């Protein structure tokens, strides 16, 4: 498992650090968009890195290789769980799976991200990571 690298402080460096990758379905609904926004906020807070689910789905080797060596957090908007299924298809184990509709956030076709809902998702993921 990769360890956190404290040695690199260069701006914009892609130097691998941390064990955790966030992958979001980013689907065409409010909860899909919340999944992406929650992953962005968690990454900006330094909880882990936002990673490309599309790259995994496309079986891009340069995406699959680092994902194999890290803990993966699947953030799905709804019970269809596209993120988790894509990771399963790629043979990548999921350390934590979160489904946003399980948090009593209703799925709608609207694409606006409700900040309060997004905050609840972020808090839930942080709570799961602490456990």
């Amino acid at each position, binding site marked *: 498992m990769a360890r956190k690298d404290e*040695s690199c402080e*260069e701006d914009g*460096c*892609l*130097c691998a650090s941390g064990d955790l990758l966030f992958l979001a379905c980013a689907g065409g609904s409010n909860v899909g968009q919340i999944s992406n926004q929650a992953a962005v906020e968690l990454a900006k807070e330094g909880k882990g890195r936002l990673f490309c689910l599309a790259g995994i789905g496309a079986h891009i080797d*340069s*995406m699959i290789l680092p994902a194999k060596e890290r803990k993966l957090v699947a953030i799905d908007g709804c019970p269809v769980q596209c993120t988790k299924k894509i990771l399963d298809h790629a043979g990548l184990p999921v350390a934590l799976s979160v489904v946003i509709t399980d948090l009593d956030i209703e799925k709608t076709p609207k694409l606006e991200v409700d900040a309060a809902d997004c905050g609840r998702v972020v808090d839930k993921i942080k709570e799961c990571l602490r456990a």
Partner: protein
Amino acid sequence: MVKIEVLGTGCAKCKSLAKNVEKAVAESGVDAEVVKVESLSEIMNRGVMMTPALFIDGEAVAVGRAPSVAEIKGMLKR
């Protein structure tokens, strides 16, 4: 001739990988061209979201870590 590409913007980890590659090539006697790719946009356009990365003949063999000299020699034998 084997084409070996070391992708990284030039931080300590990337330099460490480049050194390991040079040593592995020298020790294994493989006829290789070693290319350093340091442009962030080029690295990302290659689908690399974590560095350092190592490509051999266009194929990603390590991403987000710096393999040891021994491991690189093993990769060159394949």
